[in-house]
């Protein structure tokens, strides 16, 4: 006589969780993402980074509700220090610095993440192409990548931005993305070249899978953590690059971002008027955003290289 137990059988470790009768398990990619998120949250550094980034995103999204005044209204007395109305003082045009700081998060996030995404997309594409087919194409792409790596980023960005006639947020995004794809491309290329020789790729090719499927369904999913790490690194560099360009006056001075606050501070000699808080706050915000992205990147390093995980 068989005993039908009401308790479900124990789950053997190392196997996939059993599908509940009548239900459906989460699809593979979602399960993978959930596991990755759980590992990231468990790493103290990454957790700190996620929290800081979350705060900045919330500030950016809810800036209209959080800011006490409009960032561009020139209604206040210029060159004020911190006071009860203007918590961080005012600019030389009579604008409230604190509101500018809150609204500035939007541009810095947009440009940083946007330029980082474009640079990573270019890097992944070129890396996959170069790594998968050794030969003339690989050599050409490799040479271009090395050339782009040798040329220092910020001088090149300055030259490009200076040649362009009009400056807007989008020119900044484009210029930053164009100059920072090379590091990621080199990493992607070497990783693709390593994965290309693996057995699962060989068997996929022999079983008749076409080239796009092999590259995007076999090789790319095994490089996910690398792509994520590259994206975060590119975004970090992009935030700094955007702030630098705007500090030099090569962005659009009318946009409200952390870099333009520093640009105004430099133009109006905020040091001489004693407005050091106007210099401290946006720079600190930039540093915090970059640090949070780097901390999350530490967590992703730990994801892919278990030796780096905190015990």
């Amino acid at each position, binding site marked *: 006589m068989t005993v039908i137990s009401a308790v479900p059988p124990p789950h053997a470790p190392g196997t996939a969780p059993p599908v509940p009768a009548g239900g459906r398990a989460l699809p593979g990619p979602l399960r993978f993402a959930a596991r990755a998120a759980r590992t990231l949250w468990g790493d103290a*550094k990454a957790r700190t980074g996620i929290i800081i980034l979350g705060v900045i995103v919330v500030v950016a999204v809810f800036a209209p509700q959080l800011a006490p005044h409009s960032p561009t209204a020139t209604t206040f007395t210029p060159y004020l220090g911190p006071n009860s109305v203007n918590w961080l003082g005012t600019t030389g045009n009579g604008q409230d610095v604190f509101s500018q700081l809150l609204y500035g998060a939007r541009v810095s996030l947009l440009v940083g993440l946007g330029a980082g995404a474009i640079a990573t997309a270019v890097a992944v594409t070129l890396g996959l192409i170069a790594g998968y087919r050794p030969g003339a194409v690989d050599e050409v792409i490799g*040479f271009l990548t*090395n*050339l782009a*790596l*040798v*040329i*220092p*980023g*910020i*001088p*090149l960005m*300055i*030259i*490009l931005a*200076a*040649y*362009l*006639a009009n400056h807007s947020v989008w020119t900044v995004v484009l210029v930053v993305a164009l100059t920072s794809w090379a*590091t990621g491309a080199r990493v992607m290329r070497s990783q693709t070249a390593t994965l290309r020789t693996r057995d699962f790729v060989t068997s996929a090719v022999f079983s008749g899978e076409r080239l796009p499927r092999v590259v995007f369904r076999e090789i790319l999913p095994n490089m996910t953590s690398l792509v994520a790490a590259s994206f975060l690194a590119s975004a*970090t560099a992009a935030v*700094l690059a955007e*702030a*630098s360009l705007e*500090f*030099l*006056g*090569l962005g659009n001075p009318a946009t409200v971002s952390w870099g333009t606050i*520093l640009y105004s*501070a*430099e133009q109006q000699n905020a*040091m*001489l008027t004693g407005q*050091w808080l106007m*210099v*401290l706050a*946006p*720079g600190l915000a*930039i*540093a*915090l955003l*970059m*640090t949070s992205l*780097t*901390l999350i990147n*530490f967590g992703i*390093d730990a994801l892919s290289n278990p*030796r*780096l995980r*905190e*015990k």
Partner: protein
Amino acid sequence: MRYVLRKTVLFVITLWAALTLNFLLPRLMPGSPVDAALGKLASAGVPITNAERQAVEIQLGVPNASLISQYGDYLRNIATLRFGTSYSFPTQTVARTIGTALPWTLILVGVTTIVAFAVGTLLGVYAGWRRGRLADSTVTLGSTLFGSFPPFWLGLLLLYLLAFKLGWFPIKGGYSDGTTPNWSFSFAGDAIRHSVLPAVTLAVTTLSGWVLGMRNNMINTLGEDYVTFAEANGLRGRTVALLYAARNALLPNVTAFGLQLGAVVSGSVLVEGVFSYPGIGGLLFTAVTNHDFPLMQALFLVITLSMLVAIFIVDLLYVRLDPRVRR
């Protein structure tokens, strides 16, 4: 020998590619730099005649000759160091302007890079060796935070705190107003005093690259068998860390030297402007603000060439460090 030959060939080809890129860049950009240039010249008091316009057009490469002949002229000008006349400093040639500024930047960037490399690598070894403990977390988090400081922001803060408020260091320049550069000890001391704040700013912001890279390399190297063997043999911890692990972990850092040098050069462009330091970075700052295209082009060329030469020298030195490439 094959390694040295390969690196030399690579250097020459990359050099040629950088020169060509510098030639093509202004010709690919939209907009007319000629009108902007003429406007700048006019506001500087230079009379705009037809000959002037033609000269500017030739200088900026408005195509009225074939591209190939323009390219030939460009290469010939480069070889004879004829970069034209700058708009910001119309009384001297671009070559002279850059020549005056180059040594300042070379010294600043050179010293800062070496110091940051040494300190950063040692910190990275320490953090990697003491992995997982408080020392590691402090070093990692500290260097990440400091590495995220925008160089110009840190420079502004240091300038305000240490120079303006406390008066420990001069507010601007590479040397005191009124003195002329010479080879005396007093001038050298004065120059060093003026370079401390820019150097500290640059070093602090580029430290993190070396620290984190070295730490990761150390962690990977410490997992190797020969390290375990050395420890099992009873060697002291410090010996194992320095003589066994660090020596091998150093190699990827040396190959990454070129990238890090690029970071220092980029940082110097931003920092020199803040401190009015008379180097290449400050010149680029001025050139961009004035839309000074001849100066910008020449500066870009000089920066790229310096990077290439430095990386080439490091590649040659690498042969001494890693016998495996000596085959």
